[in-house]
């Protein structure tokens, strides 16, 4: 009797997990245009923010953000609301977070490649900004800030 109860309990637990999993899967991720749109909003904000950064860093990083924004718009990204803040390093970090969210969910391979470009660009830009500020450009092995 005890064995039967245990078996039923296990089956119920497994079934509940299975059903919960089906429920989660039944919730479709946002469309690619929306996922890329969050990245586009950051790239536009970055292009604007770098206009206020003097010298080659402002010019080159701004041009790269602008080019990515153009590619994202051409790929059908629907821009999200502009992010808060106008400080480049904070925007690059926000852009990485939005891009990582997108990379996990994007369906189209070319959209994922575009997000990968945005991710590497923001990581490199953040490293350059840290170096320029006299800080460690490799402050973590994981640029999204995770511990491991």
């Amino acid at each position, binding site marked *: 009797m005890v064995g039967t109860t245990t*078996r039923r309990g*296990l*089956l119920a*637990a*497994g*079934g509940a*997990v*299975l059903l*919960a*999993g089906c429920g989660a899967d039944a919730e479709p991720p946002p469309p690619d245009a929306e996922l890329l749109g969050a990245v586009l909003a950051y790239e536009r904000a970055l292009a604007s923010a770098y206009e206020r950064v003097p010298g*080659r*860093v402002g010019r*080159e*990083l701004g041009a*790269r953000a602008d080019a990515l924004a153009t590619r994202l718009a051409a790929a059908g990204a629907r821009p999200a609301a502009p992010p808060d803040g106008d400080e480049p390093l904070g925007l690059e970090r926000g852009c*990485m977070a939005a*891009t*990582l*969210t997108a*990379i*996990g*969910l994007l369906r189209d*391979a070319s959209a*994922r*490649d575009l*997000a*990968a*470009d945005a*991710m*590497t*660009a*923001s*990581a*490199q830009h*953040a*490293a*350059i900004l840290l*170096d320029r500020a006299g800080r460690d*450009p*490799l402050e*973590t*092995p*994981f*640029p*999204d800030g*995770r511990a*491991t």
Partner: protein
Amino acid sequence: MTSFHPHKGPDPFWQRGEVLRFAGALAGAALVGRPAPALAGQPAADRTADALVALVAREYAAAAGYRAAGGELFHRLAANCEAHVTALRSQLESVGREPPRPGPAAEVGDGTALERDFVAAYRAALGDLYDPATKRTAATIMAGHAQHLVALAANPIDALGETS
């Protein structure tokens, strides 16, 4: 062995032990927030595992190469590669695959070509990875290698454009 399912007869899937293991595995996977082990037998999980094994092997080789070459920056890069191995091993275990053993050291040269190849390898692997969390782990490691290129450049801004 007695069939557990009352209507299906001796279908191996419905053997009592299998049912119990399946249910337990599902519950366990949910508790630790990992993909259900039942997925490990499916092609998507196999592709994920194969891609992760290749990336772990590459990180091991780079870490050994950087350590052998020596120097402060290369030791930093080696430590980062080792941290990447730890993160990838965790993902690999979640799909039920044993991680590879460390192999021979890579020829690192000045590190630039190696890091560029890393970025390309992770970018390609994103298409083989199944689970969103695993894709994100690979993507942040890819970005970490892109930052290595910045650290290796005499003028960091010269590293831009080397990854795409």
